[in-house]
Structures are given as structure tokens and as C-alpha cells.
């Protein structure tokens, strides 16, 4: 248990981000099942401790690029959940006016540059954004979130070299979620699809400072993210964080199936944990882990956390209603923004 290492305010702020991330995606799955939108989407449930904590450590003017498993990062950054949900439902009121959908949400007002649905694309853009910051001599950093699969793309490796060569202020956050994933990587890390025996050896070959953390431990992630951002702001060049996560087993099928909506009481009452994903809920759910640790550290009572949970649920419900009630984009606008 390392959450004691972070103060009450920080711990609760991370927890609030994680609650919003979790309930937002539970709502996305339900809205899909209700036929409120058609698409293909990717679920971040199980990785909230990594994204929520890194985003907590960032400043207002820092920049973010992410990959297709993006809902958590958007919501964790504090981007308007109404506009995010409206975008996922393809509405005119969405961040991208219904032109991007789940795979391309961005929010200029929060420095959220891009969701790239091309695997590894975010590493190139984040490195470029960091270059832009350096050219302008701004003391901010760019963060690129991606999964371990991105390390199979050449662009990511080229970006490592340039970022190291030019000492760019970029933090690469590699959320290693291979354990339990479907496909050839079944069986966890190291995977069957890369010849390296440790992902950090790739950026380390270019002299990039590397950190490995338990991505379900908010204290450990916060320490790593804080160190990485500090190094970048000081002009010491890029940092690579490998966060080991255990994503929710229900996210593995192409169409995630939500057996139950997260019940925070499960954090302290194991008898409530039933169903096909019980083992994951009991041993790997980062939200329940954070709840237990915050209570154990004396940062909050169970009732206080339950009140925060209720608040997050109601904000997400409002976002869903906002999205459902929002108009679809007007047909006449289909050609808007083809050219800047």
C-alpha cells in the first residue's frame, strides 16, 4: 500500500478522476446496448489508476495526445463529459461536432490535441507538440499515452530517437495491458509479439530515462509521473514510463459486455463480488484498490467516498442525457472544415 505517500487532496482528486472515468465508460457501454450510437469503441476500465494519476500530475498548460483507448484520458483530463459523450453519440454538440466520434476526441481548451486511431500515431504527434513547446521556450510538457502494441510501430521508435537527440519535453506513458489481452499476446509480459524481453530497453537504447511502475498503484504512478514531468520541465529530455495494468476482462471482446456496474461497497465487502469477472474485481480493480487505500490511509471515510461516487454517477447521467437530447449534425455542414 503506497497511497499513504500522497496527500489527502491529491489522493481524492485522483479518485474523483477515476470515478468519472469508470462511470463514464459504464454509461458508454449501456448507451451502446440501448442502440444510442453505432460504432466500434475501446474500453479503458482497469487502467484508470495510470491515466487518472498521470493527468493529476500535469499542469493546465501541458499537452496530451492519446491512442484509441482514449475515453479515460479525456475524462481524466477534466474535459467536459457532456461534450465527450455527445461526440461518442455523433452529436453536433460533441467536441468534434460529430466528425471524429469515439476514436478522435480532442479538446483544444484543455490542451488535448489528439486521439489517434492509427496505433502509435500519438507518439509522433506528442513528440511534435513537445518540439513546439521547446521552440516557443514554454516550460510545459507533452504527454503521449499509448499501449504496448504501439512499440511495434516504427514511428514510435523514430520518435524516441528524435526526442532524445533534441531533448524534447515529452513523457511517453506506455500502458502495458497485454496481460489478459486477447490474441497472440495472451499470457502477459513479455509478449509473443516482440523480440525484446523488456519494453524499457527500447527507449533506454536512445538514452531516454525510463521508469517502470505498477499501474494500478496511484502512489507509485504519482511518484513516477511527478519525477518524469519535473525532468522534462528542467530540460533534461524525454522520459518513458511503463505502467503495468490489468485491464477489465470484459473489455476483451470486440463488444464489451458490462455484467455489473461498479459498486464501491465491493471495496470493503468481498461478499458482494460475484459473476464472471469476480477475480479481477477482487484482486485487480484499481478503483476499488484506491478506495481501500484512501480509507486505510485515513484520507477519507467510506461514506465520503460513497458521496463522491454518487456525485460522479449523477454527472455521468447528466452527460448521457445531454448527449441523447443533443441534435445530430446538420447535413449542410458535412463539408465544413475540410480545409482550414
Amino acid at each position, binding site marked *: 500500500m503506497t497511497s499513504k505517500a500522497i496527500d489527502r487532496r491529491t489522493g481524492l482528486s485522483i479518485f474523483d478522476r477515476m470515478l468519472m472515468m469508470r462511470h463514464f465508460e459504464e454509461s458508454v457501454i449501456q448507451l451502446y446496448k440501448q442502440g444510442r450510437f453505432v460504432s466500434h469503441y475501446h474500453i479503458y476500465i482497469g487502467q484508470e489508476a495510470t491515466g487518472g494519476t498521470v493527468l493529476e500530475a500535469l499542469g493546465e498548460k501541458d499537452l496530451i495526445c492519446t491512442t484509441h483507448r482514449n475515453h479515460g484520458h479525456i475524462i481524466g483530463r477534466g474535459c467536459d463529459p457532456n461534450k465527450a459523450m455527445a461526440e461518442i453519440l455523433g452529436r453536433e454538440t460533441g467536441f468534434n461536432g460529430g466528425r*471524429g466520434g469515439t476514436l478522435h476526441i480532442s479538446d483544444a481548451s484543455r490542451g488535448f490535441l*489528439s486521439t489517434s486511431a492509427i496505433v502509435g500515431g500519438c507518439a509522433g*504527434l506528442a513528440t511534435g507538440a513537445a518540439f*513546439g513547446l521547446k521552440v516557443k521556450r514554454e516550460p510545459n510538457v507533452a504527454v503521449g499515452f499509448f499501449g504496448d502494441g504501439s512499440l511495434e510501430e516504427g514511428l514510435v521508435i*523514430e520518435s524516441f530517437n528524435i526526442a532524445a537527440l533534441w531533448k524534447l519535453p515529452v513523457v511517453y506513458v506506455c500502458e502495458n495491458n497485454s496481460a489478459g489481452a486477447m490474441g497472440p499476446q495472451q499470457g502477459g509480459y513479455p509478449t509473443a509479439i516482440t523480440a525484446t524481453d523488456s519494453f524499457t530497453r527500447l527507449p533506454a537504447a536512445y538514452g531516454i530515462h525510463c521508469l517502470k511502475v505498477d499501474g494500478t498503484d496511484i502512489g507509485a504512478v504519482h511518484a513516477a509521473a511527478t519525477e518524469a514531468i519535473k525532468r522534462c520541465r528542467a530540460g533534461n529530455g524525454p522520459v518513458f514510463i511503463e505502467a503495468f495494468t490489468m485491464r477489465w476482462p470484459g473489455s476483451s471482446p470486440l463488444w464489451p459486455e458490462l455484467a455489473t456496474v461498479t459498486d464501491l461497497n465491493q471495496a470493503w465487502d468481498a461478499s458482494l463480488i460475484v459473476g464472471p469477472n469476480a477475480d479481477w474485481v477482487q484482486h485487480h480493480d484499481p478503483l476499488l484498490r484506491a478506495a481501500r487505500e484512501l480509507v486505510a490511509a485515513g484520507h477519507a471515510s467510506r461514506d465520503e467516498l460513497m458521496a463522491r461516487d454518487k456525485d460522479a454517477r449523477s454527472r455521468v447521467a447528466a452527460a448521457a442525457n445531454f448527449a441523447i437530447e443533443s441534435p445530430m449534425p446538420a447535413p449542410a455542414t458535412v463539408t465544413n*472544415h475540410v480545409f482550414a
Partner: protein
Amino acid sequence: MLNPRTVTYRAAVLEALFGEMRLDDSVIMLGEDIGAAGGVFKQTEGLFAQFGAERVIDTPISESGAFGIAVGAAMTGQRPIFEVMFGDFITLIMDQLVNQAAKIAYMSAGQFRVPLVVRTAVGVGGNLGPQHSQSLHAWLTHIPGLKVVMPSTPADAKGLMAAAIRDDGPVVYFEDRMLYNLRDTVPEGDYVVPIGSAEVKRTGRDVTVIATGRMVHTALAAAELMAKDDISVEVVDPRSLVPLDIDTLVASVKKTSRAVVVDGGYRQYGVTGEIAATVAEYAFDWLDAPVIRIGGADVPIPFSKTLEPLVLPDAQRIAREIAALVRGQR
């Protein structure tokens, strides 16, 4: 009257680069060997000395990674000019050009813009072989969100580079390296050719030849040959492939009633087909004959001196097509 000032195509592009970089600190250049080396064709000579390593930036031989830098920097306030040394190498940045740069303004509903220029040298000639001689501009014209320009003269090269740098979206700028030493009059100081404006390079009454890039000069040579036979040829240069100045092209064809389209890229599924179809759609009732396409041969560009010239249209071939068209043999 003062003698009009003439400069080379290479120097004209440089004038635009110097001018725009002086005007706007956010204009930076990225590419391979463009800094102290001055570019493999001396096409960036002097920029490094004037603006320094922070604005004229040599990249590793990592087109994909370096272009990611350009796109990310463009999204955060810079106006990068990204140089792809040979047009053939544009394949190495294709993913980020097509899937990121071209779509970011649209995907973000205008929240973000990507004001960058991709500059690359194309063209058959010089015996550089199949991987250093191609003109792949047609690939980019297929992608919504990209503007594509192809100047044929020193003045257009200067004016279109200035326009491309000032554009708020991605512009792909194709320059034919065989034109670098071409000398012609170029306006001094600030000079902009609007993107999307064609120009009639020679007026005529019997047939319109729509030609792109270096092929404009080949078409002008063909027009000279035809003049000896008293056939009057109008030569129109679209200058921008996207957006295409349809009005100017169609107005010319309505006047002459005959059209030949010439482009140096591969003919199959290429620029000639698109322009020919466009002209046929808009000027069908005015046409006296089919619209003729003349493109590069659909063959990898061969190396040997005896083979290489065979793949590119020359003035004699264009003249033969024009003569057949005017004599009603097509």
C-alpha cells in the same frame, strides 16, 4: 523602361523562403541535409546562415518521425516547411500526411489547424533510377484536406511557396528539379500566387493543352512546333491541382473546343484522367473531339540513358497528338 529582373526557379523559391521566414518567426524548416549543407540541390542555400539551427533544422533520416514533429509543431503554433528530399520518399510520410495532417482540422471540427508545407523535388531526368525519379503528386490529390500545388515557372514557384506557407492547412508543394536552373522574370519583394488559380501561359484558338509542372514547357515547345503548321495552341497551367481552377480550364476549352491534358506522372488513374473527366463534364457540348490524355508511361522510371527519355512525353509527341486532334483524326 527597366529590364525585367530574371532569376532561376531555385532562387525564386529561396526568395519566398527568405521572405516568409523574415516576416514570421513561426516559419521553420525541417529536412535532411537542409541546414549547413544547403540542400542536396542547393535549394536551401543561405537559409541556415541567415536563420540558424533553431529554424533550419536537420533531421535524422527518419521521415516518419520527423514529419510527426512537423505535424505536432504545426498544431501547436509553428508553420513548418517539411522537405522530403526526393518525391519518391513521400511514401515514408504517407500515413501521417493522409491520416493525421489532412484530417486534423476536419476531425477536430476546426479546433486545431495544421499549417504546414511539404516540399519535395520530383521529375524524370538525371538518370537517377526507379526510386529517385517519380512524380507521385496524383496520390496526394486524392486526399480531401490536402492542397496540392505544382509551379512551372520561377514566378509561380515564388508566389505559390509564399501562398503555401501562409495557408492555414497542409499544402504539398511539388517542384521539378529539372526546372531548378530555369531562368525567367520574377517579381521582387512580396509576391503571392493564390492557391487554386490557373494561368493561361500562351493564348491560342484551335486547341487547349492543359499541362502541369515541367510539362508546361514541353507543351509550350509543342505549341511552337504547331505554329509552323498554322495551328494555334492555347496552353493552360492549372498551377494548383487541389483546389483545381475549373473555371479557367473550362473557359479555355469552350473557346477552342479541343483539349489535350499533359502530366509527367504515371498516366494510369492519374492527374490527366481527373482533369480530362472534369473538362468533359463541364464543356461536353463545346467539344469537337475526345479529350486526349498524355502522361508518363506506366513503367518504373528506368535508369539507362537510352530508356529513361522514353517514359516522359516530349514536344514531338504532344505535337503529333495535337495535329491528329485538329485534323479530326481522333
